[in-house]
């Protein structure tokens, strides 16, 4: 794929780092509020995995960028339009069904993306991807199982998970722009199989909403950043 070259390692690291950073923040919002203690711990584990990925990617992005910024600097001292995460990652949690669908869609994409990345000529990116793949395989499995439980469970859970699918579906196109377009058939096959198990169908194509990769975000990201960056912005140059 000629297009693969279009994205520099720096840009790629920033995108993938921001995805992980923002989604892990969303999972933090569940902490202490999940349906059971067991699920609370599980969401924290996924959040911690993603936070670790974010640190690796963003430190590397800062290194390549040459301005002496580390992961913290990038996380806490950039403005909204400088974030390159996908819109899917920044979507609010909604209910547990929406959170699980978001996780499933995202992790299933991440799995394919990172399988490619693990073979990247950029050794650092390849190493980060190889390490993350083991984590992601579990995330996909965990989220897919919940999608099935909710789809098959009760009338209410089925309604909620179906709504979750509709909510997130609008942001799927963005995951498969540019070089990632080739990953879509495999992703759809995986998603379709799980949705079928859940008694749900793959939604009809919709007009995808994009922009996150270019820094044009939903209204939600600004609020997330306001909260995340508050302490650092109040105390510039302080150590924590």
């Amino acid at each position: 794929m000629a297009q693969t070259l279009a994205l520099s390692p720096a840009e790629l690291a920033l995108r993938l780092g921001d995805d992980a950073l923002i989604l892990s923040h969303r999972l933090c919002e569940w902490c202490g509020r999940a349906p059971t203690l067991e699920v609370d711990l599980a969401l924290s584990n996924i959040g911690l995995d993603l936070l670790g990925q974010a640190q690796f990617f963003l430190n590397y992005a800062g290194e390549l960028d040459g301005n002496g910024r580390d992961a913290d600097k990038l996380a806490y001292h950039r403005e909204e339009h400088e974030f390159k995460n996908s819109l899917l990652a920044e979507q609010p949690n909604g209910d547990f069904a929406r959170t699980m669908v978001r996780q499933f869609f995202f992790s299933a994409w991440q799995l394919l993306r990172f399988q490619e990345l693990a073979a990247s000529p950029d050794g650092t990116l390849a190493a980060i991807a190889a390490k993350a793949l083991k984590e992601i395989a579990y995330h996909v499995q965990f989220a897919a199982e919940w999608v099935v439980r909710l789809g098959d469970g009760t009338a209410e859970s089925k309604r909620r998970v179906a709504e979750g699918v509709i909510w997130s579906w609008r942001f799927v196109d963005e995951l498969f722009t540019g070089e990632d377009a080739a990953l879509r058939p495999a992703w759809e096959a995986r998603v379709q199989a799980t949705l079928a198990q859940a008694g749900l169908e793959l939604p009809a194509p919709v007009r995808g909403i994009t922009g996150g990769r270019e820094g044009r975000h939903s209204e939600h990201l600004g609020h997330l950043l306001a909260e995340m960056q508050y302490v650092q912005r109040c105390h510039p140059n302080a150590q924590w």
Partner: protein
Amino acid sequence: MKNITPIWEVFVRAKNGLSHRHVGSVHAADARGAVEAARDVYTRRMEGVSLWVVPSNAITASDPGEAAALFAPAEDKIYRHPTFYVVPDNVKHI
């Protein structure tokens, strides 16, 4: 009471070569969920390489009231232990 999520007993193999050991319990609606809960709850610090989960109500336990009948008869069978037998010091490898 309605909607009681089942309890599963969790057994962890710390490393290959050792047997699974009981570590605690989790709540989960199904077996797969129990394995995942056990993984998230009991192996966060690299405590294991393998997990068993067993529905709590599938365990039959001995009755402490019977403990004497069950376990005391073993006490005087000292001939089951190697130290019961005297072997001369100059005889090796036995």
